[in-house]
């Protein structure tokens, strides 16, 4: 196995046999998660499960064999985001015939809970033990309690790696950022890197003040591809213009022009909030300063603005690092590595990477699995009946 991180280059690559052996546990666990413990009876569901299983494990195999993290992660991550949108919208069409949330849904508290709301609920939760969101506590799709549990587990295991491996929206701006080969806008004023923290502070405070999740109500660009409040008043019409504009600007246009995840890195308050969980997480990206030649490729290439001149001096990525592995893959001297906090930098980079990849990849596959299978079923239905709607 190549161990460029310790500046020791060997001509040995990982063998296929060893890769297969390392992939076997992942195959077992992904099958368990994708099938939820039982093999479906319907043939089309078996096909969907099989395709998803093979797709996911091929990605993992290639990730290990080719020793490239980000390239293969991105394929699954972007597929996940697209499938999530298709599956979510199709489900809404089946249930209520529209992407718009009706006033009735809001009154009956049937809105699915999204992780981006979490930072806005913290102050009211701490002071009044109530969640300021019209959702269901338990027992429904994306219930509040289940999303909180998922968030806690992901934060402990991955920190802000959630943004690189779990967020069902992140794949959208990640995908758009890879369309062009080179960025057209090469420089963004570094002061804008602080904007997500300002958005976090402003939305957390205004949400606590108004007892309403203000980011969701006014700003969230992802309502464009999931669900939004029925336009029945001028205020809602203005809110609609705002979130559609933010989607086009931050999720589509700016990622294309800058080749960065601008929504995630320059605006998302959840991403800013999640950065603090990097402090308690065991994984980090470190720089072997003996091997580093200060070419600044990592600074250019980091999609989340987590590599700066200061990080090169400090020898580690900023606490906003999403652990996507892009810098590690692209460093010409292999000076960047996944690392486990508390251990020596001269330890095995390959081991550190594996220790991270197992939980990260399992999290990604489990989150993505049901959406990918559902999308495959809908595509099969589209081909056979001309409609994506299952019921």
């Amino acid at each position: 196995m190549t161990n460029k991180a310790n500046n020791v280059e060997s001509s040995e690559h990982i063998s296929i046999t060893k890769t297969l052996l390392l992939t076997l546990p992942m195959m077992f666990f992904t099958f368990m998660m994708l099938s939820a413990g039982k093999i479906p009876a319907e043939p089309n569901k078996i096909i969907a499960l099989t395709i998803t299983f093979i797709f996911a494990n091929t990605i993992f195999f290639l990730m290990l064999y080719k020793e490239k993290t980000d390239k293969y992660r991105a394929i699954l991550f972007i597929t996940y985001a697209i499938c999530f949108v298709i599956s979510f919208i199709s489900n809404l069409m089946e249930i209520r015939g529209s992407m718009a949330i009706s006033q009735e849904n809001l009154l009956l508290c049937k809105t699915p809970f999204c992780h981006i709301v979490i930072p806005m609920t913290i102050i009211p939760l701490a002071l009044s033990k109530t969640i300021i969101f019209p959702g269901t506590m338990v027992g429904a799709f994306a219930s509040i309690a289940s999303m909180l549990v998922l968030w806690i587990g992901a934060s402990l295991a991955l920190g802000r790696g959630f943004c690189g491996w779990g967020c069902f929206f992140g794949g959208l701006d990640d995908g758009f950022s890879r369309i062009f080969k080179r960025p057209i806008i090469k420089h963004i004023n570094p002061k804008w890197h602080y904007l997500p923290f300002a958005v976090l502070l402003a939305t957390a405070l205004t949400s606590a003040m108004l007892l309403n999740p203000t980011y969701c109500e006014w700003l969230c660009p992802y309502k464009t591809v999931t669900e939004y409040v029925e336009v029945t008043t001028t205020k809602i019409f203005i809110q609609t213009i705002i979130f559609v504009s933010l989607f086009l600007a931050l999720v589509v246009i700016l990622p294309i022009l800058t080749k960065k995840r601008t929504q995630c890195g320059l605006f998302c308050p959840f991403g800013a909030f999640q950065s603090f969980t990097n402090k308690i997480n065991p994984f980090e990206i470190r720089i072997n300063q003996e091997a580093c030649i200060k070419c600044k490729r990592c600074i250019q290439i980091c999609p989340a603005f987590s590599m700066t001149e200061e990080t090169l001096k400090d020898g580690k990525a900023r606490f906003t690092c999403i652990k996507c592995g892009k810098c590690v893959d692209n460093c010409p001297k292999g000076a960047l590595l996944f690392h486990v906090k508390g251990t020596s930098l001269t330890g095995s980079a390959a081991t550190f990477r594996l220790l991270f990849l197992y939980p990260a990849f399992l999290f990604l596959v489990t989150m993505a699995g049901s959406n990918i299978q559902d999308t495959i079923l809908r595509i099969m239905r589209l081909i056979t009946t001309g409609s994506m709607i299952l019921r």
Partner: protein
Amino acid sequence: MQGFFLGLSNGLVCLAYCAPVFVPYMLGEGNGIVRNISLIARFLAGRLFGYLIFGIIAWGINKAVLETLGYRELIIGNAYIVLSISLIFYSFLNVKTFCAAEYVDGYFYKIKSSWPALFPVVIGLATGLNFCPPFLLAITNAVAVGSLLQSLFFFFMFFLGTSLFFIPAPLISMLRGFAALSIIGKMATGLIGLYYFYVGIIFLINGIKNI
């Protein structure tokens, strides 16, 4: 609560601007934590006194101007809109605002030598009189509430919000991470300015409806 949150959103900026004024005077003498806590407490008392004076002024403006002229919602709506726009510009651009502390440097020396115990209180009062857009918005907010008690309470909560960030000042290094906190605080204040812009529009619409 609105006053508290407005103060909280502005607190980081207050700390960033005021610290270069009071740190050299107060913490440069190498005092222990207990003495520094006493200094900070007196400093904050001076700030509170300044804010409460403005609470009274805000009530006075309401009584003398708004209740006499009428068109309350129109005037407050316009004030909110103008101030929120200036708040947004103040937050995202490098704009200098009037801070009394910079203009009374000479007097500080006289007070420090004649009444040393009062010195932190006077510094606090001077740094509190910072006519920045968030402070002007706080005045507008307090004018809008109407009664003297509510106006004083509003400024007390505004004071609490801004002061939260001063509390750990004697214990932690003042310079580390300041630049970043200052930028975040200013941007957050600008974003909250958008909320006040919206409030101003609502006031204006209601004011026009009531003409």
